[in-house]
């Protein structure tokens, strides 16, 4: 299977020069996504999931951030690319939809005009007719009428604008689409429909997707793989059915218990006690240990290695091995 | 307590203009407080050394046509300027904050009415209004200060009103209503204390304007002749500008420096009190 994105030892650190502080936002990220996958990266605030996305897209502020490691995108290592080379692949091969993408549209231009602008970045010589035809097709994929092309942003609702943003993101048929909390600001019904449209669209265009969200149910409904992040590190990665039905990492377990079920049993939901650790410090042990119900002595001293459990399941926890023997 | 001082210190040092403004104000206040110590002569003394040049007969900056030492006059003139600045700013600030706060918080007809008054005031040429009132009611320094305060409150009111309008929608104000606080309590405990920051910054600029206004009034002969003020000095020295230029020049420089200090302070405060610096968390 073709590997679309392969992260090896990927690190993102924010640097506060004034106070001489380093914030380790993403530590040692390792995962691989293959063609046709839809990976949901789940995490709460401070987990580093958005930072990871911004790092992959090279959208982090240059003077106050540092990226190291490898991010192999179809053979190219993104960490070594210059901004010029990035410009060539951004939007044409690697695309993104943000939470409030609707706000990124210019309020004083018609949608069609903006689409043409964006399209011509990578295809200078395309004609208006071509672009219209292409975009109308995309509009139909997201259940929007053709009349949207001639509208102004203020004439459309939030849900419609977000759909326009999604359509725009796939206009060049990118290989990888990253959605960063793209449906969080939307209503349940709109979100449900957009998720369905995305899944359908993905199949038709043979696209690979990364979905970043704090809402596990969104991942459950639309992704085939899930990666759970906490305080900048990956706790557990695997197939959605496996991880959600049978969570192994204590953090994943804790997350699942904090979500009430819609139709199932009304089991008592529980919060995960404790607070996020200070991301400016380095920890010799497991970063989740202070809040872990199952913590053992080794968890405090030694950081667990990532163990492969088979069938695409990875876990960083001493409960499943992962410690170096002293 | 020490932490608070440290925090204030780091805030002051974060913005160049604020830093310069604060040092300037400290310097200014020292001059005002140590006036009897610093000045070489009694400025009110009509001495025998008339129209002395710079550093003639121990007069650092010379004397005027009445034998008064210019240097000492400038030092004592600082007191006048400070008094004018502070009192007129206080009057203007308090009036502006309450009127603007009430207008913005209550809204409706009160707001319409007050906004119209503010608009009228902003249309009036304030300086001419001041001239008129001084001409009618006399030119004592007290009148000058009160009049400046009474004519400059609209800009503060406008700022406070805008703050009040946005603050009344804040959750903690709604929470106060839900807790049973009455409108007066909400205005004085939540709206005004949280909205007063831009007014403070505007007031420092107002202070420099007040100093200039007083100087202009004195220059036009409408100031209080019993008090030493820089504007007075410039007016008195007008006749001698070609022969004894130091009589008008030095007070002029003093005005420029003082006004700049206040302006730097106000501008720096504006930078620091900018909402971007204030952390108002609103979720992720």
């Amino acid at each position: 299977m073709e590997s679309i994105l392969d992260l090896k030892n990927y690190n993102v650190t924010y640097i506060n020069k004034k106070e001489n502080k380093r914030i380790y936002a993403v530590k040692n990220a390792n995962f691989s996504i293959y063609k046709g996958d839809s990976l949901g990266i789940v995490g709460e605030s401070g987990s580093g999931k958005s930072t990871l996305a911004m790092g992959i897209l090279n959208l982090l502020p240059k003077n106050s951030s540092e990226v190291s490691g490898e991010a192999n995108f179809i053979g190219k290592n993104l960490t070594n690319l210059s901004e010029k080379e990035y410009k060539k692949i951004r939007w044409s091969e690697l695309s993104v939809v943000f939470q409030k993408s609707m706000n990124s549209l210019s309020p004083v231009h018609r949608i069609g005009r903006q689409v043409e602008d964006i399209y011509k970045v990578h295809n200078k010589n395309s004609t208006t007719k071509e672009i219209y035809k292409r975009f109308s097709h995309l509009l139909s994929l997201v259940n929007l009428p053709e009349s949207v092309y001639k509208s102004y942003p203020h004439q459309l609702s939030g849900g419609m604008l977000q759909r326009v943003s999604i359509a725009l993101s796939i206009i060049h048929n990118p290989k990888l689409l990253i959605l960063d909390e793209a449906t969080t600001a939307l209503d349940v019904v709109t979100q449900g429909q957009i998720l369905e449209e995305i899944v359908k669209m993905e199949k038709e265009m043979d696209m690979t997707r990364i979905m970043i969200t704090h809402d596990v149910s969104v991942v459950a409904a639309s992704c085939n793989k899930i990666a759970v992040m906490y305080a900048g590190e990956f706790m557990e990665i695997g197939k959605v059915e496996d991880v959600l039905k049978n969570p192994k990492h204590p953090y994943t377990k804790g997350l699942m218990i904090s979500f009430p079920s819609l139709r199932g049993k009304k089991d008592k939901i529980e919060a995960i006690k404790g607070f996020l650790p200070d991301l400016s410090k380095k920890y010799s042990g497991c970063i989740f240990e202070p809040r872990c119900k199952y913590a053992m002595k080794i968890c405090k001293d030694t950081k667990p290695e990532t163990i492969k459990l088979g069938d695409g399941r990875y876990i960083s926890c001493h409960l499943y091995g992962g410690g170096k023997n002293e | 307590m020490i932490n608070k001082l440290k925090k204030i210190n780091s805030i002051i040092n974060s913005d160049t203009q604020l830093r310069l403004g604060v040092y300037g104000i400290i310097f200014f206040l020292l001059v005002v407080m140590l006036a009897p110590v610093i000045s070489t002569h009694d400025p009110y003394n009509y001495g025998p050394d008339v129209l002395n040049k710079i550093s003639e007969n121990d007069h650092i900056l010379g004397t005027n046509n009445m034998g008064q030492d210019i240097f000492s006059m400038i030092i004592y003139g600082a007191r006048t300027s400070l008094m004018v600045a502070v009192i007129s700013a206080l009057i203007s600030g308090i009036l502006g904050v309450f009127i603007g706060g009430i207008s913005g918080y209550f809204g409706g007809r009160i707001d319409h009415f007050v906004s119209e008054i503010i608009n009228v005031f902003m249309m009036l040429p304030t300086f001419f209004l001041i001239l008129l009132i001084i001409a009618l009611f006399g030119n004592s320094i007290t009148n000058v200060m009160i009049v400046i305060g009474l004519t400059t409150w609209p800009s503060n009111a406008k700022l406070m009103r805008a703050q009040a309008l946005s603050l009344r929608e804040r959750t903690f104000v709604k929470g106060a209503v839900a807790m049973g606080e009455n409108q007066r309590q909400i205005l004085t405990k939540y709206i005004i204390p949280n909205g007063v920051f831009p007014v403070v910054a505007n007031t420092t600029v107002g202070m420099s304007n007040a100093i200039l206004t007083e100087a202009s009034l004195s220059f036009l002969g409408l100031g209080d002749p019993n008090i030493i003020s820089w504007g007075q000095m410039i007016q008195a020295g007008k006749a001698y500008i070609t022969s004894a230029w130091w009589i008008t020049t030095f007070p002029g420089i003093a005005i420029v420096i003082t006004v700049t200090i206040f302006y730097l302070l106000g501008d720096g405060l504006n930078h620091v009190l900018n909402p971007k610096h204030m952390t108002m968390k609103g979720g992720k």
Partner: protein
Amino acid sequence: MEDILVVTYMEVERMNNNAYVQIKNVSRWYPHKSDKKIIDFNKKWIKAVDQVSLSVNKGEILGVIGESGCGKSTLGRILARLEEPTKGDIFINQTSTQKLIEDDPRKFRRLVQIIFQNPFDTFTPRDTILEIMTRPLKIHGIGNNKGERYDIVKKELESGGLYPAEDILRRYPHELSGGQLQRISILRAMLFDPEFIIADEPVSMLDVSVRAEIINMLKKLSKEQDSAVIFISHDIALTRYISDNIAVMYLGRIVEYGQGDEIIKNPQHPYTKVLISNCPSIDPEEKIMNIKIEGEPPTPIDPGPGCYFAPRCYKAVDECYKKYPATEDVGGGHLVACDRLNKK
């Protein structure tokens, strides 16, 4: 203002007159400024909340769900009397709150409390938690001196699991986490032993792993206090977890009401069916079986005269546009405002 139909749409049959909190025919209309005319003879109204009648018993938690624009937040504000209703009244223990707030507003404020959505903005940034918590006590004359009030507040914090209370009382809001702030918000509301609590999206701004704590605390305290609670949320799974009964709002009206599980598992109103079916579940095997719906909810500017949902309803027929549907009880107090229930 037009003549409002006196008939309430959620009938009083369900609303046993013994219910502790009775919301009777509450409406909140805003004038719609027509941009063309100066004197507008055909005044239009934005009917944010339209003829809502509900009842909540002591110790009961009533969940109100709906999407943005349905009016649930406006309803919350009206119940907490942060806004006046255009029409209608709320009765607590047979007493009219309209009258109560005129005669003894402070008593009303002790009876009815609200928990807000944004814990980061619920408290004034300039006061310590101690000042924030003791101020309402001072205003209502609870506690005779500073010392007594301090003890009351300290005890309250400790009962809510906030240790060490002395430390937290000394802090300012910006030094605390969202979860802590929301807990303090609930505890402050509980200082008065309120009888009616409105929780307006209390956890939507909090991290997922913290929500459970707040929800459990709210449930525990309100049951202990035997308060009537209205829980407003757009998170359907969460609402089902905490609520005894659920009301569904659309464009200012209640379209369905019933016992929590019944509404989720057996929704009858077409809108509720769309809402529930589009709700993602954390169970990956329960794939969403979306019922399609066109467009977005419109602004409630003079909706009607028929059913407000008709323009987007997959079951709508001509009659639906002519008159507003009657409320049917489909069994066990499960009320639905729809005329097309048993038809395809």
